[in-house]
């Protein structure tokens, strides 16, 4: 049984069709990387799965529990959408931490408002997560006092604070320099080792190859190629994939 089943997702903005019939599945504990050029629909796909956009067509199921089905007549209520979102965590490209709250408060805000647990337990879990991303000394710092890499690590911890079944990353290192990128990739690798189910939209090809169980290459709103990372990245079958990866392959041989 797949933890995530995505079938026939379509999404248009006005006349531009951004997603054309996207389907894939993900097993529990797997890491999926989505690669592709800018404008290929990767981010829109992630946003549809997190209900930041509503897909025009298709079906999304988590653990055989249907979250979204365009053929169903029942309209999604705001409450159902919120419930759906709690299956997932999302880490943004530009962190989106809450600037007026400390690191610890960024983690505890949502669990407290959603009354997930008692305050002591929420605080304890938040502190454990801060420790896990190596920022225990920064628990009482404000986001503006942190580096980009530290902010992104807080954002990962914040997404984990609600115990999501699947964690999504939308280009988590694109706003960071190469040195800071390393610390984020290390945290994600750590989570992969713990068998956290993750979907990562990324431009870091070497990282995608090393960390993922499965890679999807998207172009023009369709999945061009998918499979094991060594197949898709090292030995692409489609011309479009080969072209996209040519620069990466060149660098590797140097």
């Amino acid at each position, binding site marked *: 049984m797949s933890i995530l089943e995505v079938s026939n997702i379509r999404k248009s903005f006005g006349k531009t069709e951004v997603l054309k019939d996207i389907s894939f599945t993900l097993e529990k504990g797997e890491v999926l990387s989505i690669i592709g050029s800018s404008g290929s629909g990767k981010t829109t796909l992630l946003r549809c799965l*997190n*209900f*930041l956009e509503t897909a025009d067509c298709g079906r999304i199921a988590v653990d055989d529990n249907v979250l979204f089905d365009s053929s169903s007549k029942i309209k999604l209520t*705001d409450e159902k959408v*919120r*419930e759906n*979102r*709690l299956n*997932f*965590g*999302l880490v*943004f490209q*530009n962190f*989106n*931490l*809450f*600037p*007026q709250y400390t690191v610890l408060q960024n983690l505890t*805000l*949502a669990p407290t*408002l*959603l009354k997930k647990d008692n305050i002591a337990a929420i605080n304890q879990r938040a502190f454990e997560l801060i420790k896990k991303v190596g920022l225990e000394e920064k628990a009482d710092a*404000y*986001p*503006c006092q942190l580096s980009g890499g530290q902010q992104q690590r807080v954002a990962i911890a*914040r*997404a984990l604070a*609600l115990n999501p079944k699947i964690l999504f990353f939308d280009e988590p290192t694109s706003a960071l320099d190469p040195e800071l990128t390393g610390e984020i990739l290390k945290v994600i690798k750590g989570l992969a080792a713990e068998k956290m189910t993750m979907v990562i939209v990324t431009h870091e090809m070497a990282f995608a190859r090393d960390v993922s169980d499965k890679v999807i290459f998207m172009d023009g709103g369709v999945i061009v190629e998918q499979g094991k990372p060594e197949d898709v990245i090292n030995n692409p079958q489609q011309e479009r994939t080969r072209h996209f990866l040519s620069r990466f392959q060149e660098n590797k041989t140097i």
Partner: protein
Amino acid sequence: MSFLEVTAFLFDGFKISLLIFAVTLLCGAPLGLPIAFCSMSRFKIVKSISKVVVWVVRGIPLMLQIFIIYYVPGLLFDYQLFGQIDRFMYLEYGISDAGRITAVLIAFTLNYACYFSEIYRGGIESIPRGQHEAGYVLGLTKSQIFRKIILKQVIKRIVPPMSNEIITLIKDTALANCIMVCEIIKNAKELAATKAMIWPLFFTGVFYLVFVGILTIASGRIEKKLSYFRS
């Protein structure tokens, strides 16, 4: 009249200025928020009505609005509402000008609420979408996101334009003398007319200056208090 007597007489007028200031701020600042939400509404009709109201209120001189509020009940319904309040309050309680001041308070509150609403709207719309989205993916409701995440960032951003507007407000209270409300300038003009003293008119500037000084210090304190985060 001695300097102290003049000062006391002017201060009596300044109390009315302060009253107009305080009521306008206490009623206008909250009233601005629903107007701001209407201006940002998804419903086109609500949005259009709100935009037209803001356009009219900001587009007409405040002095003219005071005249309109004061005279319109008499012209439309042949009932001098504010004159009647003036008479009633004077005869029953010995309070003068109550009706005129009410008319001024209505005009000021409406006028400033519209200006405040545009400051709020600008502040709310300047917060990046990502802040809302970060709240959404954490399963929060729209109202939780606004109250717990957006509001404080908006307040931080609107302190400078709001203090600007509030400083203008205390000086605008002088417009109340257009319908003979005894605020500070009106009292000073009365001294000029009845006692042939012109210096009290210029002296009123000191009252405004001191008060604006206090407002400037207060707004600086608020800015400093909110400087612990950047947004």
